[in-house]
């Protein structure tokens, strides 16, 4: 019998996510939230312009109608949808609702979230006079 000499394999701190398809998906998902953050920033900027007065607001409106900004917005929207879906999908794991000896079906919880999102979006659209 030899002496103990445990061998520790190293893990790359910068490219660990390349070692498994699951980690690559995770990383892409995390990185894509940058688009979501940028779009939030654009919207918040709009609020500030609105507060500044009609001229600033009009300038912001024409800015977001620029074709390039429209394309970026569409990309951001796609990521918004992806992040919303993955977030809702995780909810039943993080929020279990117990009724007696059973848990409420996760699909119901997810469905409830989509319903709430739909209702809220409709409310905003009505408020904005679009719907």
């Amino acid at each position, binding site marked *: *019998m*030899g*002496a*103990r*000499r*445990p*061998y*520790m*394999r190293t*893990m790359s*701190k910068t490219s*660990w*996510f390349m070692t*498994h398809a*699951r*980690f690559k998906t*995770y990383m892409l998902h995390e990185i894509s939230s940058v688009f979501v953050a940028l779009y939030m920033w654009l919207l918040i900027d709009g609020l500030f312009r609105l507060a500044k007065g009609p001229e600033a607001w009009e300038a912001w409106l024409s800015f977001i109608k620029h074709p390039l900004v429209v394309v970026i917005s569409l990309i951001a929207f796609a990521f918004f949808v992806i992040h919303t879906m993955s977030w809702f999908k*995780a909810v039943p*794991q*993080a*929020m*279990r609702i*117990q009724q*007696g*000896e*059973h*848990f409420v079906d996760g699909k119901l919880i997810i469905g409830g979230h989509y319903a709430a999102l739909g209702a809220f979006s409709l409310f905003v659209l009505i408020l904005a006079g679009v719907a």
Partner: protein
Amino acid sequence: MSKRTIQLEVLRYRPEQDKEPFFQTYTVPCEEEWVVLDALNYVKDEIDRTLSFRWSCHMFVCGSCGYKIDGEPKLGCKAFLRDYGDNIRVEPLDNFPIERDLVVVIDDFVEKLQSVKPYIIAKEEKALAAGEYIQTPAQLKAFKQYSMCINCLLCYSACPQYGLTNQEFIGPAALALAHRYNMDSRDVGRSAREHVLAAHEGVWECSFVGACSVVCPKDVDPAGAIQQAKFTSAVDYLTSMVGIGGK
């Protein structure tokens, strides 16, 4: 029963003679219904007695046969050969030091497990004669899933946070068990476990990659348990700020 021959590539490490681990390939004649553990046992019995690996129950109960099989943490006794090609790569679990061949050093996990006090802390110890602690089926249901853990450590092998923090992160199974006892109606130990759960290395180190729940052979869903524990930990923090104590 049909025979099949596979190439089993096993990561070997013999501390007394190897500077570092290396792959050794064994040609193994297999029965169709075999699992990877059977193939390893064939090697041990018929080809190479020096190969070391842990196992005991051969029925997904003891949790000793965790290996990385074709890049995925698996129980050797639950990984059926029919689900793999003719070339199967078996390595020790990631994130743990290799003691020898497929055997890893798990002292770190055992320490972490102890740190979350994985046992019922009752309000007052009852004398044996006073009978059992009563629990309804609904109260049992609240934590039962998290009590199914067999300490196989597949989740620690799958968890990038455990590796990235140089094993500082308390990790999936220990946190899930902490949550299991916190959810138990007979237990009042939440505040005694709080300093471990709420610590930087506790639940907040989890970035919800979710790999632990994917690889868990017992459907424990440690990732779910940790997200729930984040919520209770935040509530405990807020209530302690305003001076109303939790459980």
